[in-house]
């Protein structure tokens, strides 16, 4: 019931956001057919032919309605610039972005949570290093991290390729390792910091102190009480950051010249390529919604009380 309700809400959000994006594109200055001809002076007849071909002269609501009904039938339309079905365009780009986001998500989860726990459970040099590293990681913007990683590991040491997203599973991972690291770095830093704080709070909480006082072994206190309880705030923050990765991947895609959705979206916005922008916006919003839903489900798994609250 909970999942169905959430999915219905997501559909509503999708509709509203696609309408907003469509209106914004419509209101933005510049006309697509002028961009198509690349600043070249062509005859008004050619421009008129293009406008007609893509129904650019129809009123706003007619265009939105046409677009919406086509989408409901599974037709996302045709790209203005490439004269290609949008589905085809996205199919070519989606794997790169998905792999990139997945890799980055793994890095955030493993590196962020792992280091956060390590720093949280024990005071000492490791804690200081993680604390400093997370400040640094958070302060370094993604594009700078990308440049830095590229110049050290690709240009300097030659361990990784300088551009492209590769073909085949392992080649792809190899190509996307640095981009994913650059993308994950700021989020991993935040997650590590929050995990560390959460762990420390739980360590000092009454039930942990009580458990320790009752003579429960430290390892079990840590596993059952400290880590598990601290995962509640951490899972929220991990979820939000991972959902944000889809939108943030553009910077990294650009720096490493990857053929992902982000670069496609930016190009399409500049060219006022309605169909492409709409489709990517839907994917972004849906991705965000679904990841958030998964996080909430995970919440329930960590803390069963969350679910019962929803029922009542």
């Amino acid at each position: 019931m909970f999942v169905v309700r959430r999915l219905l809400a997501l559909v509503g959000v999708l509709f509203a956001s696609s309408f907003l994006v469509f209106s914004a594109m419509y209101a933005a200055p510049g006309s697509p057919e002028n961009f198509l001809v690349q600043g070249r002076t062509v005859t008004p007849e050619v421009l008129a032919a293009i406008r007609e071909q893509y129904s650019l002269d129809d009123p706003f609501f007619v265009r939105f309605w046409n677009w919406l009904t086509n989408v409901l039938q599974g037709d996302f339309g045709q790209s203005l610039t490439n004269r290609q079905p949008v589905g085809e365009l996205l199919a070519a780009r989606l794997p790169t972005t998905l792999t990139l986001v997945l890799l980055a998500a793994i890095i955030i989860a493993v590196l962020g949570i792992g280091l956060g726990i390590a720093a949280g459970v024990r005071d000492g040099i490791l804690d200081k290093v993680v604390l400093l590293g997370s400040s640094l990681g958070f302060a370094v913007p993604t594009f700078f991290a990308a440049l830095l990683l590229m110049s050290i590991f690709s240009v300097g040491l030659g361990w990784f390729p300088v551009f492209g997203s590769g073909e085949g599973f392992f080649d792809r991972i190899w190509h996307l390792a640095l981009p994913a690291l650059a993308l994950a770095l700021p989020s991993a830093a935040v997650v590590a910091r929050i995990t560390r704080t959460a762990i420390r709070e739980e360590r000092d909480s009454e039930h942990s102190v009580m458990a320790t006082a009752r003579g429960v072994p430290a390892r079990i206190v840590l596993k059952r009480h400290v880590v598990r309880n601290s995962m509640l705030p951490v899972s929220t923050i991990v979820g939000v950051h991972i959902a944000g990765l889809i939108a943030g991947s553009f910077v990294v895609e650009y720096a490493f010249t990857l053929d992902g959705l982000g670069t496609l979206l930016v190009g399409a916005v500049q060219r006022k390529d309605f169909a492409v922008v709409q489709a990517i916006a839907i994917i972004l919003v849906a991705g965000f919604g679904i990841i958030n839903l998964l996080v909430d489900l995970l919440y329930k798994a960590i803390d069963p009380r969350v679910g019962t609250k929803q029922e009542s």
Partner: protein
Amino acid sequence: MKKKTVGALVVFTLALTGCASGTATPPPSVSRDDLLVTTPAAAGELDLATWNLPFGEPASLDPIKAFNYPENTVVANLCEGLMQLQPDYTIEPNLAEKVESPDASTYVYTIRQGVEFWDGETMTADDVLYSLNRQLDPDEGSYWAGGVVDNIESIEKTGDWEVTVTLVEPDSTFNSYMVTPIGTVVQQAFRENAGEAFGTPAGGVMCTGPYSLGEWDQGQSISLMRNDSYWNTERAAKTAEVVINFIVDSAAIANALNTGAIDGSYDVPLGALSTLQNSSEGSLLLGKSLQLVAIIGTGNGAFADPAVRQALMLATDREAIAATVFEGTAEASRSLIPADGWAYGADEFEAAREELAPTSVDIEAAKTALEAATVDITQPIKIVYPSERTYYADIISEIANGARAIGLTVEPEGIPSAQFGAFFSDPEAREGHDAFVTNNYMDVPDPLAFLRTIMGTGGSQNYNGYSNPEVDELLSAAAAASDEGERADILNDVQDIAMTDLPWIPIVDPSVRLFMNDRVTGVPASFVYLYYPWAADLGASE
């Protein structure tokens, strides 16, 4: 502590990427005589070479939609025209065996026999007729429609292997346009079957060139595969496969070229120059160009007054722009006709060019010129540029410096590229702005073809409504002149008027900035890569 670490990291990165300014080697200063036409011929064949398009991915490979750097650079290797532009800017018959022109209004093309499309079908005069006629069909939506195409009266098949083009007005430049997509031949049957998908990654194209279209991996690369049954065996491609990437970020381009991940690129971005000049992997070569960076007036504000434009040109240190913004890879513009922008009349053009005012700054002369101004010169002059291209801001700030010295105010106005494109086609977009920048190029090396778009009444690049009956007369006379020396003389008169009236202020003539890895060579260095199958000449250096 944190700050220090970051600081050390910054220094480290700069050292690694070689971005640090003030490096020991001074920028090369360009001298027109040193500019290259070709690179040393390839000594051997290659299985694979990689190239880059710094201006991004082509939107389509349909020749009639190819009217910009990315598209033309690729299409030039796939599809051929009736004529072909050579690296030294001469024009030679290609898919036409010969051309006869009884007068400047009639062009009779004898079509070459024995030419095959990639699929093995023979090219016929009907394919040629169909391809040329696509320009005239509004439903095909050719980006080349207008201008030269508008002047076509009829295209007819006048023999089994003969196609005749008749023009409305005589135009001696018409034949040179047969090197561009206007004269490019595609297979009729394939075009008709492909429908809307023609030219897209799904539909592809069918042409006769030295390379056929391989895999088009969108957002990443296009592969060109050698056409083993190419009709011109002397010009067969030396590399079996050329993969063309679309990296646009200048740091990424510098890295890819500097590590040898990509073998070469034409017109590498200015931001990549410092790295590439010192590269140990390959070398940066400067070639003869047909490009021009200029400021175009819209006919609004103080910039609409020719006296103001003259004063601005005299006060602007264009040599400094060439030396700093272009790091010595450009030359201050002496004329509105880009240096070496001619395929005929070299003696006449060279001589007249020498007579033009020098490119150095002359503040006194600028002040004198400004006295003739009849507009309100206290109003600021806003020059629009695409804000993503920051080097334009540097150029405009140098212009503003000069302007300040003579009491004018010039301000840069950055707008997104998407909007900027409309300045070239939409009068409404230009409304309320005084001037805008352009990185222009001559379609063909013919000053007539270039000047008439800028100065002819109603010309396609005439953005400030310039109209001078004397110029129109001279342009018509040049178009009708079949003697090339005579045509050059007439055009020199137009050039004189251009440098007085300055519909555009020419700033610099950028040379072709070609980077090649040491393992490859052979491609032309001159500005023919938009219409000449450059990749076919690419091969091993040893």
